[in-house]
């Protein structure tokens, strides 16, 4: 019961947030939600399965282009979004089957190469994709209550989507398969010795991750009503990797925080100065050097401090500093 308070509070906050925001703020927050879904997907394979990809934009782009290309023929939103998910997941399954043999830097390179290949295809196939000009999305976002195009409508679609993805992923990482994936990240050879098929679990995580990224891309196509090859570019893959490192690898709520910080800072800072990439670079390096575990970890430590103080106030006799230090070291793996 107590565990539910925090997520419930966040859900309520997300639902009433638009009241406090300008219409620009609402639109921006909706974009944060889309990016959050995308970083959740990358966070799953990076933080839980230990697969660091520099080509995850491939699946986002596949989702986005699915909506743009198929939308001309099938105007149904449910069918389109489902296709975006299934198509991205299928490509993830097929490429994962080939790529997952390699690990570490090799995996990074091969995922990068694959996404750049898709980028080149989208760029070159002018007749189909519009090439560098991109293409507009013909279908409108409609769940049966009429087309949704205003920022408020988009906001709620994205907010509900991110919550659903979060809850499903939370359930997944607590499931037998999810726990096994964590085991694979921790110690592959032991998992094999216990009888787990390490490759199957990595492939499972990669496929689910691809599907979620495809969903994010699909939502983005509806959000923007325009799709360009930039959605497939390694630049974009790199950005989401930065988001999850700032937010906190190996947690579920860290990456969305990283996405929020990234998108909001990018918007405000780049309206003042053109040096945004440099400033982001500095923030990123600072987190890699000094902030291991990202914002999520900093929040957890702060939370522990607060709850410790609370405990001390409630029961001054109980002052076991030894126990607390142990709690702190455990924090990162728990979350």
């Amino acid at each position, binding site marked *: 019961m107590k565990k539910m308070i925090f997520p419930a509070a966040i859900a309520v906050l997300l639902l009433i947030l638009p009241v406090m925001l300008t219409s620009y703020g609402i639109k921006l927050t909706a974009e944060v939600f889309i990016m959050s879904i995308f970083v959740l997907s990358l966070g799953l394979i990076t933080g839980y399965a230990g697969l660091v990809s520099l080509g995850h934009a491939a699946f986002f782009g596949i989702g986005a282009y699915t909506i743009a290309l198929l939308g001309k023929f099938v105007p149904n939103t449910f069918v389109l979004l489902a296709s975006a998910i299934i198509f991205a997941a299928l490509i993830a399954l097929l490429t994962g089957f080939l790529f997952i043999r390699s690990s570490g830097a090799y995996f990074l390179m091969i995922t990068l190469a694959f996404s750049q290949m898709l980028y080149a295809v989208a760029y070159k196939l002018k007749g189909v994709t519009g090439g560098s000009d991109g293409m507009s999305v013909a279908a409108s976002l409609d769940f049966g209550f009429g087309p949704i195009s205003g920022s408020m409508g988009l906001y709620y679609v994205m907010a509900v989507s991110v919550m659903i993805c979060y809850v*499903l992923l939370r*359930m*997944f990482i*607590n*499931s*037998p*398969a*999810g*726990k*096994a994936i*964590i*085991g694979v990240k*921790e*110690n592959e*050879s*032991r*998992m*094999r*010795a*216990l*009888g*787990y*098929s*390490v490759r*199957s679990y990595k492939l*499972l995580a990669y496929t689910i991750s691809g599907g979620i990224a495809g969903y994010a891309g699909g939502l983005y196509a509806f959000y923007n009503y325009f799709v360009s090859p930039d959605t497939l570019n390694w630049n974009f893959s790199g950005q989401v990797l930065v988001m999850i490192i700032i937010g906190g690898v190996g947690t579920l709520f860290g990456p969305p925080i990283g996405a929020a910080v990234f998108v909001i800072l990018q918007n405000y800072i780049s309206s003042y100065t053109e040096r945004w990439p440099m400033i982001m670079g500095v923030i990123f390096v600072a987190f890699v050097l000094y902030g291991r575990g990202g914002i999520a970890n900093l929040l957890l430590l702060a939370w522990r401090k607060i709850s410790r103080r609370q405990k001390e106030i409630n029961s001054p006799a109980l002052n076991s500093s030894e126990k607390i230090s*142990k709690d702190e070291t*455990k924090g990162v*793996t728990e979350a």
Partner: protein
Amino acid sequence: MSLLKVEGLSKSFKGLQVLKNVSLEVEPEERHIIIGPNGAGKTTLFNCITGVLPINEGTVSIQGKMIADLPSHTRVSEGMSRTFQKNNLFGKLTVEENVHLAVTARKSYRFKLFKSLLSYKDMQQESQDLLKEWDLWERRNQTVDELSYGEQRLVEIMLAIATKPTILLLDEPTSGMSPAETIQTTKLIQKLPRTISLLVIEHDMEVVFSIADRITVLHHGEVFLSGKPEEIRNDQRVKDIYFGGGALQRAEA
């Protein structure tokens, strides 16, 4: 029929031949110990039997079924399980989470996607029984990294047993343990049900002779001698090998 049968197994690393034509058998219920000086190829033999390393020549079978070409992880469903000479655990996970993973490994629901692992009562019960049996119940909420070395060695064995093997391979189960821990562990191994046949690599002669039904001596990658404990104990050549390798001195001290 023997439970585990290794025949004519050879293995070399880039021209260095580490195992030469090794044959050995483990009968049902048998406790078979492998001894031999450092570098004799004992761990390599385990890696070949369990499929961690590919073999160059020979066959490995369980209850008559050839398994030498099966991928490593599928041998667990044939009833084979092992421990490692160097602790090979989930250090950042708690002791309980370690056992959960091991117990779940052979469950039909190990691929379930959305139901919580903790909701499986049979898994919880088996885990609890193991933790109590191996005297790690009090430690269950600590991460494995926080345990003492000896306790980690116990987790190592506990995980291997959690997959319910019919043939269990233990690679120096008591190495690095204090004398008290060694005695405790030896007792726990002795208490294992006979439905689990054992193939154990061990240097500590006291442990060897208190467990063994049969002993095989491996020397320079070859089976030097195999026989009943008394035969091995009184064999002058075995003593010579060990004095050469220096291990028996440690054991007799």
